[in-house]
């Protein structure tokens, strides 16, 4: 459903994306992870036909993003990064207008709008002006619009950034509902646990290049050991860590008690947890950015 082949985008002398290649089947959720400036939004902008690539090609829903842009726009929907619904409209008006612009008949647009607002628990505020609503509620209004659109492929560029824990979960529910409806979803996020929970495939980007692609579980398995010991201490740690980020030392181990004990004895504040996708990202980004000491 999404095929990206050698995709590149250059701004001046800088390659924001360079030879990015991955593919995702239909009905899946793919999360694109990476630090700020990794190229996530540039990738989304190319895939939604807003930005021309400098090199390579990409297909979404079997359509070329450059040659078949007009036909492709009928099959995709997007929530842009830092996007917000129009403040003087009500949530119902915004979603309804968006559906009319997508070509739905008026009655169908209204029915779908109400249904989507219901599913995102926005019924009570559906007739209030959007500018009076909280940031999280505004974000859910955006989600309601694309949820109601019933697009084949949905692009969500950091849809949960800045949301509280409850609002984030409501967004997760909307994403799950879209996937259950058969949509393919490409999601960019800084929240690794969100990507781990929601995604079938994770694409890890750094400095415009693909660092790794795979199911979250497979990527987690690439982290050595079963546990992570994370310690903070101002001085030199007694055991060389796998990754050091400032005074924070990270160890990937099978038996955490022994390492933790030595660190505690040296005066460190220590935490132990099972390894997760976040640890894989730290591992890869740590090495990529030269943050490792070991």
């Amino acid at each position, binding site marked *: 459903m999404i095929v990206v082949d050698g995709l590149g985008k250059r701004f001046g002398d800088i390659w924001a994306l360079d030879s990015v290649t991955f593919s995702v089947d239909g009905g899946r959720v793919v999360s694109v992870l990476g630090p700020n400036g990794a190229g996530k939004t540039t990738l989304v902008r190319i895939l939604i036909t807003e930005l*021309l690539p400098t090199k390579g090609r990409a297909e979404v829903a079997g359509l070329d993003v450059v040659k078949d842009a007009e036909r492709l*726009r009928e099959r995709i929907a997007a929530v*842009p990064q*830092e996007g917000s619904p129009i403040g*003087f409209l009500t949530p119902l008006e915004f979603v309804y207008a968006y559906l009319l612009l997508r070509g739905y008949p008026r009655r169908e647009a209204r029915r779908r709008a109400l249904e989507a607002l219901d599913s995102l628990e926005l019924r009570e505020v559906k007739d209030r002006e959007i500018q009076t609503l909280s940031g999280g509620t505004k974000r859910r209004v955006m989600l309601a619009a694309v949820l109601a659109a019933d697009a084949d492929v949905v692009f969500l560029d950091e849809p949960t950034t800045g949301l509280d824990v409850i609002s984030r979960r409501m967004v997760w529910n909307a994403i799950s509902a879209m996937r259950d409806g058969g949509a393919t979803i490409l999601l960019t996020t800084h929240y690794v646990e969100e990507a781990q929970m929601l995604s079938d495939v994770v694409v890890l980007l750094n400095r415009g290049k693909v660092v790794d692609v795979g199911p979250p579980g497979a990527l987690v398995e690439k982290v050595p050991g079963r546990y992570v010991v994370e310690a903070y201490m101002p001085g030199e740690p007694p055991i060389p860590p796998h990754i050091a980020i400032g005074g924070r030392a990270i160890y990937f181990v099978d038996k955490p008690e022994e390492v933790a004990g030595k660190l505690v004895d040296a005066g460190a504040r220590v935490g132990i947890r099972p390894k997760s996708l976040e640890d894989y990202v730290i591992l890869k980004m740590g090495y990529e950015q030269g943050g490792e000491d070991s």
Partner: protein
Amino acid sequence: MNKAVKTLRDILVIGWLNGWVPLVRSWVWLVANAVTPLSLLVVLAIYAGPLGIKWGLVGGLIWTIASNGISLIGDATFYRLEIKFQQMLVAAPVSPVAYALGLALSSFIFAAPTLAFYAAYLAYLGVFTAVGVLEAAAALLLLWLATAGVGFAVSTLINQMRYAWAVPGILSAVLSTMAPVYWPATVLPSQWLGVVLPTGEAGVIIQTALGLARYGEGLLAAAWALLAAYAAVALALLAKVARWRQV
């Protein structure tokens, strides 16, 4: 759905959401649109009496149309840079030309009540003839297309929101005071200077059509030709720049 019908529908939907809804929801927009030409009307009425009122009403018609077309800069830039509504529509079956014309329609909706007031007042003063009304309406339509096209094209060049609020004020002031909108082109060293800007062309046409001023046949013909050319070029420009894709 037929492509032309879809385009027309999209224009109406955008006109509704960006023009009608805010207008009925908050009259402050209407007042904000009407206040400047109304102020000039009052000043002209005080200093020039009944004739000043006629000049103030004709100038107000032209100023309102031109400033609303130009004010599209603010909306288009806000939707593109600030809330990313344009990006949401890029990933949807909405044509960029329908989007631009929809925004232009919404600016016209804001202007409509003020225009209706001026037109009704002019009718009350007895300056309308059947031919005069048609000529004035045609000139205002061309002026609307010209300024809306320029407004959208300029909006695509703006990369910081604060300029989107400043630029329309400057353009509106230039278009309404540097051209014979509230005054006759006869005060200029050469009347031909009066048809350099589209507002001046509309001014020359409407002042003649409503009997406020008399200009030569050549100048009048030039005003029509240049105003039509401005509108055509602005629409062509709009079609060219109103593309979703960025390089």
